[in-house]
């Protein structure tokens, strides 16, 4: 343990030195290669211009290189792998894509992902907004906010374990240790094995993500609400608007940008949802989602890199438009200010 810590510290130290050295010396070399001497004014100004052209690339270079190595290359490699067989040796054309379209489990995953997309971002944003508005008006609002925000600090796996106990089922005449079943039993109902009820179990899993993410939506939207100029609300009050109208006609339009950010961020998160499903059901009882299916094909029983690559590509294709839209909107907003 001590050895690991010492070597980790050593690596960090060496890396910092190496980085500083890179920037210092590459700068030095640039200055030497393109000298600015007093004698020839024209050459000096030309060299100055050239330096200005090269310098940004020197500084951005390492980051760009790492981006290519860790992001662009894997995407390209995955794309190429998706046309090869399970061991990645033989070219099979579109066979893997054809398989995906015909596979029952794949279609089930697509259906479940769409279900998640339809429910989770909307629910998180809705609850986040409602809580943000309501907690602004009560004295214990900040306490309430902290409590709502707290699940954000828990890992997805940790949260799933907590909820596993909420959905826990004990058979027959045993005392129910699961909160939900205990409540159901108290009111005279029959306990259920919640996570094995097909279709509906998807929603029980979604609740976990909603529980985690509502805090995030609440924080962003609460900040946005604070940014609304008092005057517009006062004007609306003077004009005789009721609370409902103030909320929908004055507040929501003014924070529309923030709502979009929250919505799209959670949408991307949902497309990648993996940990919760793995921990709770591992895709059994028809709860499979794309990310789990990909993991399953890649890592179970030696793995099939072709098929898992196809699923990875499909997840990426699904995420990309939302990312592009998000970045564009952010750029537009930056220009506007």
């Amino acid at each position, binding site marked *: 343990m*001590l*050895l690991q810590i*010492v*070597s980790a510290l*050593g690596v960090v130290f060496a890396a910092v030195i190496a980085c500083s050295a890179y920037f210092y010396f590459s700068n030095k070399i640039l200055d030497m290669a393109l000298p600015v001497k007093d004698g020839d004014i024209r050459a000096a100004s030309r060299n100055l211009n050239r330096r200005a052209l090269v310098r940004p690339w020197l500084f951005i270079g390492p980051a760009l290189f790492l981006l290519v190595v860790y992001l662009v290359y894997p995407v390209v490699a995955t794309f190429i792998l998706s046309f090869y*067989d*399970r*061991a990645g040796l033989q070219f099979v054309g579109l066979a893997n894509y054809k*398989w995906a379209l015909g*596979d*029952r*489990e794949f279609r089930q995953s697509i259906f479940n992902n769409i279900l998640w997309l339809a429910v989770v971002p909307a629910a998180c944003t809705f609850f986040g907004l409602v809580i943000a508005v309501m907690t602004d008006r009560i004295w214990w609002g900040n306490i309430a906010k902290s409590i709502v925000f707290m699940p954000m600090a828990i890992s997805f796996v940790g949260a799933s374990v907590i909820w596993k106990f909420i959905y826990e*089922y*004990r*058979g*027959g005449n*045993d005392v129910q240790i699961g909160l939900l079943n205990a409540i159901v039993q108290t009111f005279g109902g029959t306990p*259920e*094995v919640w*996570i*094995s009820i097909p279709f509906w179990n998807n929603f029980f899993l979604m609740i976990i993500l909603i529980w985690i993410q509502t805090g995030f939506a609440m924080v962003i939207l609460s900040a946005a609400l604070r940014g609304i100029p008092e005057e517009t609300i006062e004007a609306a009050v003077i004009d005789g608007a009721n609370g409902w109208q103030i909320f929908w006609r004055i507040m929501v339009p003014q924070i529309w940008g923030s709502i979009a950010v929250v919505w799209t961020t959670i949408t991307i998160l949902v497309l990648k949802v993996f940990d919760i499903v*793995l*921990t709770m*059901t*591992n*895709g*059994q*009882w028809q709860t499979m989602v794309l990310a789990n299916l990909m*993991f*399953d*094909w*890649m*890592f*179970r*029983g*030696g*793995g*099939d890199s072709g098929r898992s690559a196809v699923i990875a590509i499909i997840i990426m294709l699904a995420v990309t438009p939302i990312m592009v839209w998000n970045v564009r909107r952010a750029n537009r907003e930056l220009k506007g200010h």
Partner: protein
Amino acid sequence: MKKSFLMGVAVAALFAGAASAAELKFAPGQDAKFNWKSYDEFKAAHADLKGQPLTIFGPWRGEDEAFFMSVLAYFTEATGIDAKYSSSENYEQQIVIDTQAGSPPNIAVLPQPGLLADLASKGFLTPLGDDNSKWIKDNYGAGDSWVGYGTYKGKDGKEAFYAFPYKADVKSLVWYVPENFEEAGYKIPTTMEELHALTDQIVKDGGVPWCIGLGSGGATGWPATDWVEDIMLRMQPPEAYDKWTTNELKFTDPAVVAAIDEFGKFAKNAKYVDGGVAAVASTDFRDSPKGLFAVPPKCYMHHQASFIPSFFPEGTKLGQDADFFYMPTFASHPELGKPVLGAGTLVSIAKDSKTARAFIDFLKTPIAHEVWMAQSSFLTPYKSVSTEAYANPQMKKEGDILTSATTFRFDGSDLMPGKIGAGAFWTGMVDFVGGKSAEEAAGEIQSAWDGIK
């Protein structure tokens, strides 16, 4: 700065050295039930590897990890090899990552021949050589079948011996509490027909005969595959079983569907299982046997492999508080003899080295088996070990079942391709218990099998 850094490294190295020289559980040469001669011979033959590294990756965690470490201590003590053991809850995924990433451990220990065959076909394993396969054949009970389970096709398409069996489990066991049986006046069934009759008798007496729990997190469903395999061996000849594991015999074949249905007779009858049918799929397999020990008992019988006493309540004395009987065979199928379903871990070399070869050699010494046998949860088909070393008479009884079986077959789901044996089969069993018919569940498993090339 540099000086203090080096000092830190030196101090750390000192500690690491101290940690690897672990204590030996049983002092060499003292207890006569151990084969100390084999240990001394091994020590003498491998003295030249001091300080060389060896990485071992395996499935043993928790208690088993501690047991394995105690065995490994003898290896490191004898050779001076710097052996490091690591494990993962998701070992079947981890080993794929490690081998594909080009950083495999020297030794990979896996309980799945199917997965090992897959790794071998991609060229990730090193053949162990004919000497070792011959050694297994000569020294293990049912040696031929063990050699078969370690022989796969390599990247070049040629068959070779890749995996050395070490540590076995017997699965064809039904656990019960002798006291409960005595009180109710039940007798150990010797045929499947009697088992059915006993099951009905218990219900008639107002009890619940079985505890069945299929829950195992992401692996939920596997205990049911053991049931079906055990039943399969009792209804079909071993050749049919072998064909089934390679899908020559389809899942939709009436023989397989009948075996699934036979399991359903126990698991899908609300009166037969503790907690009702809904509890079967959701109860964790580790919690399930606890019903045997409840007062009054929640159930009388529990079908599970030889490892399950690890999950019995603390202080349970085997043979006294809990015992097992051999899962009986059908009186209507006397030609099938006494089949035993089992499993085991297989040791293979993923990155060749002298130290890895030395470790394989170590596994051939009786002492590598006896040290674990003497503690708990270890059975071996190795005929030259002194069975006196078994920790209790129950384990000795299990060891006898293992070595004297007329038919020994490996856990079928571990032989099937990972996507089936560690996926579709599990899911299919969960769906079956959840209400689907045996035909439907089998049909889905078969279509999943058709889907892989």
